[in-house]
C-alpha cells in the first residue's frame, strides 16, 4: 500500500510506551478542529455585530478544510502521523456518546427501519458494483473490494476483507483511494442536494448514513447539514456497520472456495470478530440514558463529549485526504465507484423520500 494513503483502521493499538508518540498528532487534530470551531463562531459573531447575514458554515467544514490545506500543502510531518491516525478512535468514542441522544425505543424503531433500508442498499450496491467492475474490466478482487467498500463502511470494510480476498496492496490502495475520493465529494454534494430538496433533518441524516460510505464522512455529511441530522446519520451508519461481519463472511467464503484456501471453521466466532464493538457501547449508553441514570446536565455533558470527539475526527478526515494520491490512483476504479455511488445515493434517496411520509421521520 502506498504510504501516502494512510490506512486508518489499524484494528489494534499497542498499549506501551508508544502512547507518547501519539501526543503531537492528537494536539494537531485538536488545534485544527478547534480552529474550525473558532472560525464558525467568529463569522457568526462578526455577522451579528455588523448586522450582516453571513452564511452559517458549520465548524465541520472548516475543520475538514483546514486539515485538507495542511495535508495537501506542507504535508503531515512524520512525528504527527501516529497521532493523526487516532481520528478513528475519536470517531468511535464520539459514536458511543451519541447513544445518549437516543432512547432505546428510538434505536430499535429507527434501527429496525434502517436495517430494512440497509438490506436493500447492500443487495443493490453489491450487485451493481460487481456488474460495473466486470463491465469496465476491473480485476475481480478489486471489484470485490469496491463492492464491499461501497455497500458497508468504506475503508474499515475493505481492510477487514483484504486478508480473506488475498488482494494485492495496489488493489487495496485503489479501492481505498476511490472510496475516500468519493467520500470527499459526498461531503460537498449531499448537503447541497439536501438543502435543494428541503429535506428534513431526520430524512437527510438517514440518507447520509445509508449512502455515504466511510463512517467519518457519513457523520461529517450529517453534521454539515445540522446537528440533528448528524445524530440520525450516526444511527443509520451504525446499523449499516453492524452488518459488516455478514458481508465480509460471505466474501471470505467465496474467495476461500475460489482460491482453494482453508474454510472458515467457526462462522459465529468470525462474525463476532468482525462485529464493530463500538455499536455495543452506543446501545449501552442509550440504555443507561433510557433508564434515567443520567440527569439533564449529565446528558448534555455526554452529548458535548461526543461533539468534542467528532471535532478531532473531522480534522482527521481533512488531514488524511491526500488529493495528489487520489489523482494518482487512476480513473477507472474511481469512475466505476462514482457511477455505482451515484446510483446508490439516488436509490436510497428515493427509498427514504418515498417512505418518509409513512414512517413519520
Amino acid at each position, binding site marked *: 500500500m502506498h504510504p501516502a494513503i494512510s490506512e486508518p483502521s489499524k484494528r489494534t493499538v*499497542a*498499549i506501551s510506551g508508544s502512547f507518547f508518540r501519539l501526543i503531537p498528532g492528537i494536539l494537531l487534530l485538536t488545534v485544527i478542529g478547534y480552529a474550525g470551531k473558532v472560525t464558525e463562531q467568529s463569522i457568526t459573531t462578526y455577522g451579528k455585530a455588523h448586522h450582516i447575514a453571513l452564511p452559517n458554515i458549520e465548524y465541520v467544514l472548516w475543520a475538514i478544510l483546514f486539515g485538507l490545506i495542511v495535508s495537501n500543502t506542507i504535508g503531515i510531518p512524520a512525528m504527527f502521523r501516529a497521532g493523526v491516525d487516532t481520528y*478513528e*478512535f475519536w470517531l*468511535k468514542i464520539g459514536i458511543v456518546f451519541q447513544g445518549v441522544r437516543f432512547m432505546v425505543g428510538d434505536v430499535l424503531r429507527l434501527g429496525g427501519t434502517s436495517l430494512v433500508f440497509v438490506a436493500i442498499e447492500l443487495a443493490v450496491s453489491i450487485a451493481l458494483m460487481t456488474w460495473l467492475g466486470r463491465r469496465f474490466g476491473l480485476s475481480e478482487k478489486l471489484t470485490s473490494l469496491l463492492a464491499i467498500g461501497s455497500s458497508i463502511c468504506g475503508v474499515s470494510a475493505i481492510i477487514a476483507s483484504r486478508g480473506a480476498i488475498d488482494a494485492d496492496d495496489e488493489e487495496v490502495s485503489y479501492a481505498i483511494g476511490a472510496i475516500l475520493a468519493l467520500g470527499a465529494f459526498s461531503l460537498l454534494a449531499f448537503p447541497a442536494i439536501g438543502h435543494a430538496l428541503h429535506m428534513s433533518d431526520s430524512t437527510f441524516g438517514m440518507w447520509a448514513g445509508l449512502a455515504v460510505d466511510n463512517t467519518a464522512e457519513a457523520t461529517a455529511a450529517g453534521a454539515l447539514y445540522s446537528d440533528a441530522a448528524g445524530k440520525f446519520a450516526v444511527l443509520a451508519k451504525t446499523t449499516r456497520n453492524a452488518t459488516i461481519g455478514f458481508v465480509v463472511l460471505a466474501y471470505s467464503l467465496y474467495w476461500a472456495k475460489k482460491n482453494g484456501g482453508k474454510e472458515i471453521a467457526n462462522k459465529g466466532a468470525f462474525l463476532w470478530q468482525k462485529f464493530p*464493538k463500538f455499536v455495543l*457501547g452506543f446501545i449501552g449508553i442509550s440504555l443507561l440514558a433510557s433508564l434515567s441514570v*443520567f440527569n439533564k446536565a449529565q446528558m448534555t455533558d*455526554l452529548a*458535548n463529549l461526543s461533539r468534542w470527539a467528532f471535532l478531532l475526527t473531522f480534522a482527521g478526515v481533512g488531514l488524511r485526504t491526500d488529493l495528489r494520491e487520489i489523482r494518482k490512483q487512476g480513473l477507472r476504479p474511481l469512475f466505476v465507484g462514482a457511477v455505482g455511488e451515484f446510483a446508490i445515493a439516488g436509490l436510497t434517496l428515493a427509498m427514504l423520500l418515498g417512505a418518509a411520509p409513512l414512517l413519520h421521520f
Partner: protein
Amino acid sequence: MRKISVDWLAVIGAIALTFLVWAGALPDIPW
C-alpha cells in the same frame, strides 16, 4: 506486547468518561 482493538478501546474510554460524568468528577463540559 498486549494489544487491544480500537473498537474496545473506544468503548472502554467512553465507559470511563461516562462514569466520571455520572459521578460528578468532571467539570461541566461546554460546547
